[in-house]
Every structure is written in C-alpha cells, then in structure tokens.
C-alpha cells in the first residue's frame, strides 16, 4: 500500500479546502494592492478595518446562531431599532453607560423573543425571525416616523469615542472588533458552550440524547446574536453621530454572506470565528477596493457576485475530492 503518498495528497487537498477561500482572498487583495496605489497603505487598511468592524461583530453573533444550525433574519431591522434606543437614552440621560446598557438589553430582548419562539415554541427559525424583524421594523418607524436623531453637542465624549476615537493610530472600533473576534474564537473552540453549540448544529438528536439542553442553548445563540447586533449598532450610531432608523438593514444580507463564506473555511462545514473574520474582510475589501478603483457600481455588484462564487468554489470543489457530498 502506498499509504504515505495517499495521505500526503489528501493532506494537501485538505489544506487547500480549509485555506482555499483564504487564498482566494489573498489573491484579490494582491490584485487591489497592485492595481490601486492607495489600497495597500496603512491608512486605507486601518480604515478598511474600521469599516468592517460593525459587520464583523454582527456576523460573529450570527456565527453562533448558524453554528447551532439556526438562522436569524431579524438582525438588519434590529440594528436600526437599537440605533434609536441608544440615541434616545443617551440624549435623554446624557449617560453613556446607561445608553449602552439599554441598547444591550434591547438587543438581548429581541434575541430572547426570537429564541423563545424558535427554540421553545418550535417555529421554523427563518419565518419566525423574519416576522419578528417585521415587527421590529414597525416599532422603530412607529417611534421615529423615519426621522434620524442627530447627537446634540453636549453628549459625553465617550459616546463619540466608541465609533470615532483612536488609540494611537488605531481606530477604536478596530480594537473592539479584534477583541470580539478573539473572544468568539476562544468561546467557540475552547469552552463547553462552543462545543455544544456545534454539536447541536451537527446533530440535534445526538445532542439531546447526550443530555444537552438543546432548547436553552439555541435560545442562548439568539440572545448572543441580539447582543452583538446591539454592540454593532452602538458603534454605528457613534460613528455616524446620529441614529438612522434604517441604517444597518444592509447588514442582514452581508452578514449571511459572511457566515456562509465562513462555513467554507477552516472548519468542517460549520462557521468559525476566524472564518467569519476573513469572510467579513472579503466582503468589505471588495466594497472598498472597487470603489477606490472607481469601478461603476453595477460592475461592483457583478464583481462581488463572481468573487464570492469563486471563493466558495475553491473550497467546495476541493472538499468534494475528500468525501462524498451531495
């Protein structure tokens, strides 16, 4: 038996499968760096990181939901609701921490509602969170009638620091994002919470038989998603200096795309913390690089679609060589 050559070949394929999307990302990165002189500058890279910070944080929360085999369609609308809650409490109390607390509570509450009807009542997650998203949309329009809320001059400094501040040369949202990326990678790979979430996503019946409280864990993933939406919304509001009720709706589809990209990397068909980071980088890099190259917007959409397909193809085609997939 030529076991060793077989193993080596398979290991190479396996490596490519896990890192294929990353390679694809690096390729695009290189192209941008070569074609646009201003792309690969420290300033632009820092800005890119700052732009992606909110999407990344939302997608990290979504990673938990998707890791447990679920789906959350309410994140886009919830972002807008929390923008408003944050601004209203901040302007009303002039207390940043109170506003932050209210935002997180509000995000957790939406997550709790989602989680309860999905995990405990047993509604299909797609339709349930979609309906909750619709309710949240109605609520925020009811409150604001669509009006944005701009910060007055006398709000606490920290409220603008969160989204606009710097630590040295590094934008504060970037630091926040990296903190959460590391935290999520840690939780998902090193703690029982992460193990169990993936177990539930992989086989809910097996998890139930193993004595895992499947319902409770699924609920938790929705709450995590809600809280991460809240954090991202606070950064967004601070970054924009105003609460836009409709800002953040674009995050929904982008976060979904990011998490699906994430599933093609590193892990074995489940989204990972690091994969989500790279996925968010790919999506944000495309937005940034294509705008810098002044590519007409319709070509941007075409390019984005093509790139996403290629990045995923690399992983999927290689995964197929390794095992039977349908």
């Amino acid at each position, binding site marked *: 038996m030529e076991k060793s050559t077989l193993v080596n070949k398979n290991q190479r394929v396996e490596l490519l499968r896990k890192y294929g999307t990353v390679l694809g990302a690096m390729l695009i990165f290189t192209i941008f760096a070569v074609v*646009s002189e*201003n*792309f690969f*500058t420290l*300033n*632009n890279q820092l*800005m890119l990181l700052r*732009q992606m910070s*909110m999407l990344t944080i939302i997608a990290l929360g979504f990673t938990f939901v998707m890791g447990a085999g679920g789906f959350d369609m309410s994140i886009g609308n919830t972002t807008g609701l929390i923008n408003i809650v944050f601004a209203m409490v901040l302007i009303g109390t002039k207390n940043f921490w109170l506003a932050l607390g209210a935002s997180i509570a509000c995000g957790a509450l939406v997550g709790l509602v989602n989680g309860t009807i999905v995990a405990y009542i047993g509604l299909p997650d797609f339709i349930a969170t979609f309906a909750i998203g619709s309710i949240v949309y109605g609520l925020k*329009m009811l409150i604001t*009638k*669509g*009006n*944005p809320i*701009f910060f007055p001059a006398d709000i606490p400094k920290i409220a603008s620091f969160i989204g*606009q501040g710097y630590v040295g040369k590094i934008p504060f949202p970037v630091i926040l994002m990296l903190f959460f990326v590391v935290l999520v990678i840690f939780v998902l790979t090193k703690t029982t919470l992460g193990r169990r979430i993936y177990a539930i996503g992989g086989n809910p019946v097996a998890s139930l038989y193993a004595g895992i409280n499947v319902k409770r864990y699924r609920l938790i993933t929705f709450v995590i998603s809600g809280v991460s939406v809240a954090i991202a919304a606070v950064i*967004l509001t601070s*970054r*924009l*200096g*105003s609460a*836009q009720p*409709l*800002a*953040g*709706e*674009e995050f929904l589809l982008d976060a979904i795309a990011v998490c699906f990209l994430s599933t093609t990397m590193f892990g074995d068909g489940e989204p990972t913390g690091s994969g989500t980071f790279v996925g968010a980088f790919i999506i944000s890099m495309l*937005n*940034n*690089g294509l*705008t*810098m*190259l*002044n590519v007409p*917007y319709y070509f941007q959409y075409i390019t984005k679609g093509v790139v996403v397909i290629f990045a995923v193809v690399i992983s999927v085609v290689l995964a197929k060589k390794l095992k039977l997939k349908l």
Partner: protein
Amino acid sequence: GNTPAPTTAAPTTAAPTEAPTEAPKVFKVGINNFGQANFFARIGKATLEEQIVANGGEVIATVTADVPSRMTAIENMVSQGVDAIIIQEGDISQVAPALIEAKAKGILIASMDAGDADFVDVFCESDNDQLGEMAARKMIEFMGEKGNVVEIFNDAGSMIRVRKEAMHRVVEEFPDVEIVAGFTYAWPDFFPDGKAKMEAILQANPNPGDIGGVYATFDGVGLAAAQAIREAGLTDSIVVVGIDGDPEAYIEMAKPDSPFKATMAQDPETMARTVVDQLFELLKGNTIPERHIYIPGVLITKDNIPQ
C-alpha cells in the same frame, strides 16, 4: 401634456356660489409615499395629511418602497372608495395602469414631485433640473471653476437622475472641471454606505487638491460625505453641495469647519399645501388656474440659513 382636468366645469375665477345648507361632503383622499427615509418624504407626508384634514377631508395614508407595492396600495385605496389620490415622490408613470383605472372611476389624481403624466390633474414639483443646475453652478463657483468632482447618486430615483444629468450638463461648460469619481448609495440604508464609500474615494485620492467638489444628489448623502471629509482632514480643500434643504444640512453648514457649503432647498411644506388646496378646489367642482405648478428652490449657503 397640458390636458385640462376632466372635472373642470367652466373657467371660473370667483369662488362658487353654492348654497352652504347641505352638509359638506367629506372627501376621502388617499396618499402614497415612497419610502420614509429622508426629510423631504417625511415633511411632505406630514403636511399633506395636515392639510387634507384642514380642508375637511379624510386621509388614507400608505407608504411603500417599491413599484408593485405602490400599485397594490393604489388599488387598495380605490377599493376603499377614495375621491382623490396623491402620489408623492418616485415616478408616477411607473404605476400608470393602476392610476388610469382609478381615473376611470372618477378619482382625481395628484402628483407631488412624482413626475407628470396626462392623467394627472394637479402636479406640484420642484424643478429638479433647476435644482441640479444651480447646485452644480454653486459648487463650481466654490471650486474656483477648476478641479475634480465626485458625484454621489442612485439611478433608481427619477429626480436624482434629473439632478445628476443637470450637473453633467453644467460641467461640460467648464473645461477645467472634471468628474473623476462617483458612487451609488444604498437605499434606504444610505448613510453608513455613503460614508464608507466616500472614505474609500478619499483613500484613493488622499492629497488636498485631488478632489475639489462633491456633488451630493440629496442632502442625506452629502451629510455622510461631509463627515468622511472632516475625518480625513480635507475640509479645507473639498466643498460639498447638496439638494433638499434638510434641517440637518443646515446644522452641518452652520459649523465653522464644515465642507458642506450649499444646498438647494426645496419647500416640501408649501408644495404639499399647494397640491392639497388645488386638489380640493377640483373636488369641490371648481377650476384651478394652473395644472402644473413649480415650487421654486432656494439656494441656501452659510449666509442665509433659515431658522
């Protein structure tokens, strides 16, 4: 075209001499608003509603964000027995079949900044071509008639396209002015998207002088661009002009370090009041002097910001 409204009786100038004895009919007026994302839409809608009530009418208000839903909303209002429909923003001809059907049932049609069509009985609008042209001229004036322009637009809105084309026309006149970059904002989630894209443009053109002017087809994205410019420290070398007269744009312009230098203010309140008043004249069986009414835009700079 200039077709007179079919309900028109004789060309009267004086108020009708009807007997005030019979109970006045309560007219039901349906309004359809395109999205709720900017100040023009909101103020316009609120004023329309107020003015209908002030005229003794009953309001049926709908808000939709795409064409099929708008058509559905129109049909639903017809089913409800409205006497007139006001379409605010968007492009009225996109829903022509539904409105023609409504018209056949004797329902009056009004357009508020939503374009014209031969079935429209009253049409009030800002002259978007004029708004675009004046904003562009002001921008070029601020730029000293030379330099590079960034345009922010979205092809999905008819008035936005008109404004953009007006600007292109003006730029043709100035050999030293060139449109070098541009981007489309997401709608309705334009603010974060507009800001992020402006940041990317500034990274691609990082030096003072690379860009001289930013032409924002409406104030909302102008505000987002101004933020990005201020954060990039390019306030002194770039001028932003917008269109709308958004109160938030006034606040921005009032700041001493703002790159936001001018906006062409529309007057949604006057527009809404005019359209409603004219419509009620027709409903009461009177004639109106002018079917197509322009509400002129006013150029606002730091020096004449309204309070």
